[in-house]
């Protein structure tokens, strides 16, 4: 299906406005918002929490439910990635290690 151009443009620009609103929420006002120090410190884990919150379901949820089969390429790939990280911390190494397990299982065995 192809989206009608004008309708699509309006939809997309509205989404852009929403993104601007969220990203600049506490940046717009002239005076700095007063956030208690304890909360400010606690908020430092927010980005880590957000990343984990995106990653965990991608690995452990399939079709809306907790994974219930071991014939799923994602869990072994995540384990390979984790082991590689324990051996050599980084981003590219664990990524390639995970893909090296993921792609054969998925493409050859259809997991």
């Amino acid at each position: 299906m192809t989206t009608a151009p004008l309708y699509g443009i309006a939809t997309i620009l509205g989404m852009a406005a929403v993104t601007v609103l969220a990203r600049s929420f506490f940046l717009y006002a002239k005076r700095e918002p007063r956030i208690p120090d304890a909360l400010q410190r606690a908020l430092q884990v927010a980005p880590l929490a957000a990343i984990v919150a995106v990653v965990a379901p991608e690995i452990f949820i399939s079709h809306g439910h907790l994974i219930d089969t071991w014939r799923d390429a994602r869990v072994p790939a995540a384990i390979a990635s984790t082991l590689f990280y324990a051996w050599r911390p980084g981003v590219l190494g664990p990524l390639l290690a995970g893909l090296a397990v993921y792609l054969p299982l998925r493409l050859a065995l259809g997991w």
Partner: protein
Amino acid sequence: MLVFGPGIAAWGLVTGVAMTQSGLGVGLSMLMSITVYAGSAQLASLPLIASGAPMWVIWASALCVNLRFAIFSAQWRTHIGHLPRARRLVLGFLLADLNLVVFQKAWPGGRHETGQARYAAGGAASVWLIWQGTSFAGILLSSLVPLEWGLGFAGTLSMLGIAYSLLVDRGAWVAAVVAAAAAVAAYALPLKLNILVAIAAAVTVGLVMTQAGRAARRMRPGEGSSP
């Protein structure tokens, strides 16, 4: 910042391919990539746009998926709050999740220091270039990239490495475990609100832990009978 290059590139490519393959067309896909510039919100909107959902539903979904940026903006305020408003807003729009992650590793104090705005701007430019470059590549080459390979999982795996690199102390471990459990448990919530639930849970547990630690320290000298 460049350590994360491959992960950002994988996400960008997959997002570009997904936009075109969902029927958005090359022009609209490029417009979305440039103006929305929020990968998770873009991916969440595609099935809604393809199924002809009302515009306000799509906007509401983008808002929910992007709400975490409002939380992040409070942290950016500490570091780039001294800039003039126009520059704060432009820089704020360009700062994605990974920018804050990298920034926190480089400036762990949580205080304002000189050079932070320049560091943030450099990070924003790097992520923007990699993301837009690979996203455009995905848009233009969409027919050549087989989505059934599940290449989106490459993005997940790279985020996994990033998450591990952030586990620097006990507080971070607790936050990660709490966030993972909350995100999986609240997965049934619509509009990716489970991400927000996970952030709230992790931050709350962190708050309680620091308060409890402080209370414990305060009680110890008063007890008079330390072991």
